[in-house]
């Protein structure tokens, strides 16, 4: 099994998808000859030409609007939004058009498309190259929202997303593009979009995270272990629809919950996880739930390292919930 970075795994998945189905097309800014600002679409333009790998005019509204039209026509478009921070002009096309098409047409029309976009901080990009706005999309019935944290999942979930028949917002934690490395199956390979992944088994506290924060949480495992705390780490992978069962089963075992997200705290997805656990497993809880999150401020440039939850904040929350016996 070849070792790949997350970026290579995404590029590999796109090559596999385009070879498998000639209805798969890509569109976006700088995705053609340049191969994308991060390099995710490298080699595709040369191999498949301009009809299937399109450099578009600079309009997110136009990219997603025309992708919706292509999906209606029967193609499987995979538009790229260069940075998630630039997606808002396309918000209407995503939440009011793509997401509702199947429902509002009584199942006559569907919008199978995957909107790929690098998300989150970690590149010193200030608030227009760093936002984690997954919660906006997770509030939209009809959309799937996926955010992998490993190279293997990035490939398997991207391929699943392209062929699942629903519109998917596929968020790529750009901080992990080159940092996340691992064995990735060659060729056709899919992962279940409806299942969370237990990344590490443990008995004292359940930590639920997704995307780049998974990396921070993994770094904390050892330190927690040294302090005599056994952490069960759950990678949500998919935020909508999300796998509550795996989280609930884990909390019923550990009796403690910490959610960790890079996004701002208020109305972040961690709040949904916390509320669900409070509703359905409060009798298993031995301690208050703790949410670790970015602050309710815009994403800063110079103080990025202060804004983003780090190992100390995650470990602090784990220790806090373990104060209750």
């Amino acid at each position, binding site marked *: 099994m070849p070792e790949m970075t997350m970026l290579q795994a995404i590029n590999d998945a796109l090559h596999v998808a385009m070879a498998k189905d000639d209805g798969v097309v890509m569109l976006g800014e700088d995705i053609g000859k340049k191969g994308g600002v991060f390099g995710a679409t490298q080699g595709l333009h040369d191999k498949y030409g301009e009809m299937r790998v399109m450099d578009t005019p600079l309009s997110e509204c136009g990219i997603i*609007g025309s992708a919706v*039209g*292509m999906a*209606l026509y029967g193609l499987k478009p995979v538009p790229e939004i260069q940075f998630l921070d630039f997606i808002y*002009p396309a918000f*209407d096309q995503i939440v009011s058009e793509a997401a509702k098409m199947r429902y*509002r047409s*009584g199942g006559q029309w569907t919008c199978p498309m995957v909107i790929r976009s690098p998300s989150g901080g970690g590149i010193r990009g200030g608030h227009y190259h760093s936002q984690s706005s997954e919660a906006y999309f997770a509030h939209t019935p009809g959309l799937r929202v996926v955010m992998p944290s490993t190279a293997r999942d990035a490939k398997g979930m991207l391929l699943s997303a392209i062929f699942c028949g*629903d519109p998917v917002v596929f968020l790529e934690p750009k901080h992990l593009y080159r940092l996340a490395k691992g064995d990735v199956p060659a060729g056709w390979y899919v992962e279940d979009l409806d299942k969370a992944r237990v990344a590490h088994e443990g008995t004292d506290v359940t930590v639920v995270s997704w995307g780049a924060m998974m990396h921070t949480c993994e770094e904390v495992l050892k330190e927690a272990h040294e302090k005599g705390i056994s952490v069960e780490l759950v990678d949500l992978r998919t935020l909508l629809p999300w*796998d509550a069962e795996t989280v609930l089963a884990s909390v019923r075992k550990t009796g403690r919950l910490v959610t960790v997200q890079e996004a701002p705290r208020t109305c972040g997805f961690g709040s949904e996880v916390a509320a669900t656990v409070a509703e359905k497993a409060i009798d298993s809880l031995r301690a208050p739930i703790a949410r670790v999150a970015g602050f309710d401020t815009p994403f800063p440039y110079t103080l990025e390292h202060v804004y983003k939850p780090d190992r100390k904040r995650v470990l602090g929350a784990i220790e806090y919930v373990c104060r209750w016996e």
Partner: protein
Amino acid sequence: MAEAAELLQVIDVDGKTRGKAPALKPDDLKAMFRAMLATRLFDQRGMNLQRQGRIGFFVPSMGQEASQIGAGYAMGEQDWLFPSYRTHSLAILKGVAWKRLYDQLWGNATDEVKGRQMPNHFSFRDIRWVSISSPIGTQISQAAGAARGMQVRGEKGCVWAWFGDGGTSSNDFHAGLNFAGVWKSPVVFMCENNHWAISVPTEKQTASQTFADKAVAYGMRGVRVDGNDVLAVYEAAREARERAVRGEGPTLIETVTFRMGPHSSSDDPKRYQAQSLFEAWQKKDPIERFRAWLKVKKLWSQEWEDQLSKGIQDELAKAVEAAEATPAPTLDTLFDDVYATLPAQLAEQKAGLMEQIRRSGEIENAGGAFPL
């Protein structure tokens, strides 16, 4: 400043031929008239049904029959349609059964969109009529994408996007025309300038001399046509379609027409529209004009129209009766078609609702009227 686009006309206000009439057979001309008349009758009945409280809402198209049927008649069998909520005449022209239209107005159990949208938001996959949404202009960039899809697949045909004068102010108008221009996609952008975006007149919508002028900025052809002249619209649309299919790129057609009714059943134009303006346009009524022209050509008689009208009214009455008698969609359909398959959290919510109803009975419908 460049000269404003010239206004194309075939029939003048008295029904006389000006310029060259398109080569249409008598049966075609009569079919066009029938569709225009049927649309008018459908609109009158729709407004009445709403006033009687039998349907919740209605959007009439009175005054725009020529603008729509003229272009609709130029459409090819395999063409795609991205309509607006005021273009049901095109479904009537394409022979969509009345019952299907009324089912949607009632949102009943046989409604093809399963009671999920307000009246007039039709979807007819069998005629490649894409589901309508309310936010203005969104279909314009989608049409550009579908037309690009045709190019990717190497298929012959044309995509038609319909919108009004207000729609030209939307983000998607700019994006859609820009993309289609760059891609040279086979799409015809039909801008019906009916002079009103609800209550906002065209002079508050744009500082351009005409809406057709906007085409220049996107490197495409802009055509301005008398939208109450069905033959002129047909000719402009036919030519635009031929160019699109030949690979010569998109066209923006502005049909200059007038919304003779309210924006919707919830609107009263008397609050913002001068009576004199309405009366001036009433004299240019597209159906009267076409009738006068057909009469000169000896293709119209009062007896023929009376018969036609009675036949249509009978069909409408029957379809109304059937749609009204059809029950509402069952509650469990609320959860269908959100995703390709029912996810666990929706299955759980559905089971919860069914359990609640089992325990505490049917959910009360408090009703309510749409205010806009």
